[in-house]
C-alpha cells in the first residue's frame, strides 16, 4: 500500500497523468499571460515538499487547489486572452475574398466572445469541446457535480452563439 507520494516513481506517475490537464485547465481559465507552465511547476514543487502528507488518491485535487490558489495570488487580473491561432485559415485559399473576410470576422467575434465568458464557463466549455474531456473528468477537476458541468457547457454555448451568429436581415 502506497501511503504517500514521496517515491519518485509515484511522483513521476502523477506528473505524467495530471500535469497536462492542470496546464490546460489553467490556460483556459486564466490565459497564457499568466504563465500556466510555471504555475504547474510550482504546484508540483509544493507537492514534493509536502509529499509525506499527501496520499496518491488525493494528489490530483491537491494540485488543482494549490495551482488555482497560486494563480489567484499572483494574477494581475488582466483580461484573459487566448492565443489566436492563424493556421485555421489556410484551407480557405480557394474561396472568394468575401467568404474569407466573413470567416475572419466570425473568428474575431468568437475570440472576443470566448474572452468574455466567465472563467468557469470558458474552462468547462473548452476542456469538453476542444480537449475532449468527459463531463465526469471535468467534474472531478473542478470539484463540482456532473449536472453543473453540463449546465455550464450549455450556457457557454448559448452565450457564444448569441454573440457569434449574426442574423442576416437583408
Amino acid at each position, binding site marked *: 500500500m502506497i501511503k504517500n507520494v514521496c517515491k519518485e516513481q509515484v511522483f513521476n506517475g502523477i*506528473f505524467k497523468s495530471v500535469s497536462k490537464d492542470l496546464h490546460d485547465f489553467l490556460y483556459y481559465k486564466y490565459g497564457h499571460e499568466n504563465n500556466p507552465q510555471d504555475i504547474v*511547476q510550482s504546484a508540483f514543487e509544493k507537492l514534493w*515538499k509536502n509529499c509525506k502528507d499527501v496520499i496518491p488518491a488525493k494528489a490530483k485535487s491537491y494540485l488543482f487547489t494549490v495551482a488555482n490558489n497560486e494563480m489567484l495570488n499572483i494574477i494581475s487580473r488582466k483580461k484573459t486572452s487566448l492565443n489566436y491561432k492563424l493556421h485555421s485559415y489556410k484551407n480557405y485559399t480557394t474561396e472568394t475574398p468575401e467568404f474569407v473576410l466573413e470567416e475572419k470576422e466570425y473568428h474575431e467575434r468568437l475570440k472576443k466572445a470566448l474572452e468574455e465568458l466567465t472563467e468557469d464557463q470558458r474552462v468547462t466549455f473548452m476542456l469538453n469541446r476542444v480537449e475532449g474531456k468527459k463531463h465526469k473528468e471535468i467534474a472531478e477537476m473542478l470539484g463540482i457535480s456532473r449536472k453543473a458541468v*453540463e449546465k455550464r457547457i*450549455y450556457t457557454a454555448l448559448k452565450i457564444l452563439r448569441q454573440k457569434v451568429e449574426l442574423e442576416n436581415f437583408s
Partner: protein
Amino acid sequence: MTHEELIQKWLSGELSEQERKDFESSEEFAKIEKLLNAAKAFKAPVYDVNKEYNRLSNNLSTRKSVSLFQRFNPIMRVAAVLIPILFLATLIYYFIGTSTEQNNWIADQDQIFLPDSSYVRLNKDSKIRYANTNWRNERSVELIGEAFFSVEKGSQFNVATTEGVVAVLGTEFNVKNRDGFYEVVCYSGSVKVTTDYTSVVLESSKGFRVIDGKEENFNISDRLEPDWLNGESSFNSVPLRVVIEELERQYGVSVVTNNIDLNQLYTGGFDHNDLNVALESIAIPLKLDYKINGNEIILTFEGK
C-alpha cells in the same frame, strides 16, 4: 422535447440514435457544428510533459538532498556518512599516489590541439578533457557529444565516452555520442571500437553505430571528413528524434512535435546557416508543417 432540451441532451450524449440523426441533419446543428469547429482554433498550446518533468527534476534536485537524508533508515544514514568519507580518502590517495592532473572540460572551442599536435574539432554542445602530464605514455581523451579527431602517429590513443571506447594508433575519425545514440566513423587508417557488449575494428570509409541498443555496421561513400565540419549535418537512416535533437543543438532552439512518429527513419541533411532552409529539408520529405515561434519550433504532421 423543446429546442433547448434537444441541444442539452445532444451535448451530454443522451439522445437516442434516431433523435441524434434527426438533430444532426438540421440547419440548427450546422451552426453549432461550425462554432464548435471554429473553437478548436483556440486550443491550448502543446504541453511537453517529458520536458516539463525534466525541468521540474532539475529545480528539485538541489532541495531534495536535504529531505532525502531524513528519510534514510539507520543503516542508510551510516552509509550516507561513510561513503563521502571513503570517497574523499580515495581521492586524496589518488592525488598523492599519482601526480596525474585531470584538466577541466574544454567546450565551445572549434579546434583544439593536443600536446602531440593531434587535433580535435568539437561540434555544438560538446566537450572533451584529458590529462596533460602523462600524455606521452597515455594518450586518452574523454568526450561528451560529438567530435572529429585527427590523430598523429604514436602510442595508442583512446577516446572514451559513456557508450564505449575508441582505440587508434594514428588516423582520422568522428565520434558522436548523444542520448541513446553512439556512432563512430573512420575516415582514414583504422580504429577499434569497444562498448560494453561488443568490439569491432573499422577500416577507413566504415562506420559503426548503436541506436537504442541496436548495433549496426555501415559504409560511407568516399568522404574525407564528416559534413558537420563544413556547416551541414547529414544523416543516413537515423531515427527522426536524433535529427531533431541535432537541429536543436545547432540552432539553440527547442522543438515541439505534434502527431509525429519520432522513430521513423530519416535520410538527408540540413544546413547550419539558415533555420528556414534547415527546417524545410526536414519537413518537406516527411510531409511535416513547421512554425517558428521565437526560440520554439512546432513541427506537426498533417497527414495526407
